[in-house]
């Protein structure tokens, strides 16, 4: 996963490092640390990110791998007398979920907001809210009046109920149901907006998705640049630099306030747009020039 994070962040590497340097300072691990960072240090990109974070934070920082932290993070925190735990990635976050609520946790590099019900946990999630997509659709693709969304029940938090009139929701628990939903939605919607759910987006279901998309001339929207590359009409993807800054700021805030309970998880503040004009052409979906100008990259 760290490799993917590095890749994600590689494009805004310089800015990201600078932000980390500003907000974090390096603290030797030989003394008690105020901040404990849990991340996969074996992966070069993640390790680089952790280093940057360590450089940016003025406090003492200790770094642990998710494996080292698994089941022992509580004692680590006690030993380090950490005031904040920064969990980077899903594995790290899963360990942090077991910490006492007295230990504030800030997570990053996690796709969707954690809905554990615990008040000491907050962070920046990567998934783009449906509302964000809908605003783009409304603005640039008005022809796509009905947008179908296949979701798992846990995803409800990224679906904006305000758009329910144009959204056609379809619940699926597995890839079979996802495919079944594609068939069910194919005739009823103008486009299918994908939710970043790996249990639904299996190889088979994605294949079936694009096959149906081409057959039914229903463009697929989301999730990431690689989906656009494969044939999705467009996708809104978090901006790595902005996301990093958001994580740092949140950690700073939690460290300052000593509590995360007042801080709600946040989506990325800034997105990069990726567009596949070939798909638009094939689907006969007009692509406005403004959209093209905003795009971080246009495929093919």
């Amino acid at each position: 996963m760290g490799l993917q994070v590095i890749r994600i962040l590689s494009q805004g590497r310089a800015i990201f490092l600078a932000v980390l340097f500003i907000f974090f300072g390096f603290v030797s691990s030989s003394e008690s640390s105020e901040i404990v960072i849990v991340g996969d240090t074996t992966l070069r990109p993640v390790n680089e990110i952790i280093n940057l974070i360590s450089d940016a934070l003025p406090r003492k920082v200790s770094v642990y791998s998710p494996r080292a932290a698994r089941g022992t993070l509580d004692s680590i925190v006690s030993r380090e007398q950490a005031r904040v735990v920064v969990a980077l990635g899903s594995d790290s976050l899963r360990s942090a979920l077991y910490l006492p609520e007295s230990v504030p946790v800030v997570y990053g590099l996690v796709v969707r907001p954690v809905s554990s019900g615990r008040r000491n946990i907050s962070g920046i999630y990567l998934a783009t809210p449906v509302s964000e997509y809908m605003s783009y659709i409304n603005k640039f693709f008005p022809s796509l009046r009905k947008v179908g969304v296949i979701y798992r029940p846990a995803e409800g938090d990224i679906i904006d109920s305000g758009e329910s009139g144009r959204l056609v929701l379809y619940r699926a628990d597995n890839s079979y149901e996802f495919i079944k939903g594609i068939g069910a939605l194919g005739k009823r919607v103008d486009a299918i907006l994908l939710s970043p759910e790996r249990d639904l987006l299996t190889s088979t279901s994605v294949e079936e998705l694009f096959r149906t998309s081409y057959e039914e001339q229903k463009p697929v929207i989301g999730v990431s640049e690689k989906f656009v590359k494969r044939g999705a009409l467009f996708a809104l993807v978090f901006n790595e630099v902005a996301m990093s800054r958001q994580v740092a700021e949140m950690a700073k805030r939690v460290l300052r306030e000593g509590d995360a309970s007042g801080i709600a998880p946040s989506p990325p503040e800034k997105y990069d747009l990726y567009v596949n004009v070939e798909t638009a052409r094939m689907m006969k979906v007009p692509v406005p020039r403004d959209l093209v100008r905003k795009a971080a990259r246009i495929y093919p």
Partner: protein
Amino acid sequence: MKNVLKSLMSLVSSLEKRYGNTLKRKVLCVALPGLIIASVVFTYDALKTEKAIMREEIIKRAEVLAHLASRTGELPVLSRNRELISGAISSLRSIPEVSFVAFYDRNLGLLMGDGPVGPSPQALPAGRHIVVFENRDYFDVYASVYTEKEREDIDLYNETEPGGKVRENEGWARIGFSKAAITAAERKIIFKGLLFAVAFTLFIGTLVSAMFSVATKPLSLLSRALDSVRKGEYPEIRVHSHDEVGILASEYTRMADAVRDREARLKESRKRISDLFNRVEHAIFRLDGSGRIIETNRKFDELCGGAQTFSSLFVDGDDRNRLSETVAGTFRDVEERMHGSGEKELTVIMSLYPELDDDATVVGFDGYFVDITEKKALEEAIIQAQKLESIGLLAGGIAHDFNNILTGILGYASLTQSMVNRGSKIYGYMEAVTKSSQRASNLTHQLLGFARKGKYKTERLNLNNIVAELILFLRETFDRNIVIVFDAAEELPPVEGDGNQLYQAILNLCINARDAMPAGGRLYIKTEPYALKDERTAQLYRVPAGEYVRLSITDVGAGMPPEVKKRIFEPFYTTKGVGRGTGLGLSMVYGIVKNHGGHISVYSEVGLGTAVRVYLPRVSGIIDEGRRKNIMKGSQGKATILFIDDEEMVRELGRDILEAYNYKVMVAVHGSEGVKMFHEHGDAIDLVVLDMIMPEKGGRQVFSEIRAMRPGVRILLCSGYGEEQNFDELLNEGAVGFLQKPFQHSDLVAKVEEALKK
């Protein structure tokens, strides 16, 4: 494996016995089973490999199908929709090799199946996408039905590297994949393999056979050539290659030349040895270990042809183990008596040697013998002759002295008688003295005849005439039961000799023949010319080879045993008993014959008779007639006679007798005086009576000196006995006659008168 090799070797051996053992056959015998084994092994290996490949392919195909099933089954399994699952099963079941299909959930709970689905295992090995179990008839393949998804949600934002996705097991697809294809393929492979094995074996066998035929053709030529060499032929072979076979052929040619040359030399040598073997006068023979005769030479066959065993050769029987003596090395130059061909008995000198093998075991014998029968006979004859010679010498000496004595007695007795009246007592006494002296004189006469000293007159005679005259006498005197058969040869060559002596000799032989037939019988007398050409026989007879006249006198009387026959010519040896014979008859015959240069042989068989053969040298010329003249017709002369004799009594007797017959007599007491007297009175002397045996100057020298003085002088030789046995030379030189001592006065007067007439 050991048994297979043993069987193979046994097969090769039996094939060799049946079809011979040429190199090609050997190679084929070894190569063909090898090829068959190789083919079978190759086929087996190919089958194994092919089967493994086929198995791998089928497994791979099964895995592909399983993979397909896992993919096609993803959604049906996820959905648990029976319709979907049934569709997936149907599509898989349409594949011929698939015998059954079933789908399971991730806990191996059966969702649906079609076909003979057997029970599934409780669990499958973890971490494996496809698990294959092999059953007898099918492969039981389990393929994981999975969904492939990103490892983390965040991966949805990144490019996924190959293999970066994770698979989550949703259930299992199970396929029964039939092995029928393998079985069919296996059969096909076996069939093809066997076909190939047979074809390969035949092809390679034929190829090997052809190659060996080509490669071994020169060797076959060599083999045939060597076979011909064994038969004594030396054919040339032409091999043009320069390889090992070419070199071998060249070596063969050289060898064949060498063998041919050697064989020629060997044949020549063998011929020389064989010729020598058959040419030698030694009888050579070989025996096997048991004494059986296995090889002989010509001489052996000539002497003992037909003999089968060694022991049967000997006269002395089989009581001696001569073979053991041979092994002991003592049977060397042994004199033996053997049975010869034609029931002849041979005397031989024999040597026998053992033939030993490498272990010094006697495997046979070889030996030779020399026939010394004739040599032995010759030796005996020589011994006998020497013996007779010695006896003769002795007898001659005695007779000489006796004659001189008797000459005086007879002479004076007869002189006394002439001086007295016939009726007076003195005349009667003298008559008795004369008769006794005459008997003694006859004895000495016979002794001298045996001693060959009595020959004093020779002439050419026809033996037929003598025999014919004798037969007239014999038929008058012999009993009538003695039948005399005379077989006279026509134109019998003459012999030279003293007719009286020969007459006497034949008479004695006939008398002996008569005595041998007291009950009567036939007396055969035969004369014939005879050519004695064989030098050995002549040597045996002690006469020179040449032309002879043979006189045979054969009786059918009692015959003589060998010990008697050996001694019959010895003086005084007789078998007639005391008073019936003097034992001098045959001695005289022997002496007379030898004195005539002849030979006498006796062949006698006890109970069958005796044959005596007399061989006298034949001469050429005309036979003298009127042999027997009456020399007693008296005549006296007035001549002057010189009487030379060293014996006073003889000398005086001679003077007295001659003077009584009016001769003028001069006497000389020895030779020198005789010569002197002849020198002084030679002209007056008409006749010289010369004793031949005198001391100092012998008769022969006196004869010469007197003849030197007056060559024409008449000289009458006189002798009772002398060292000089032959006076023929002097008679030929001019001596007018010979007077045998002892003599009566009439003999002297007759001889003197006869001499004076010449």
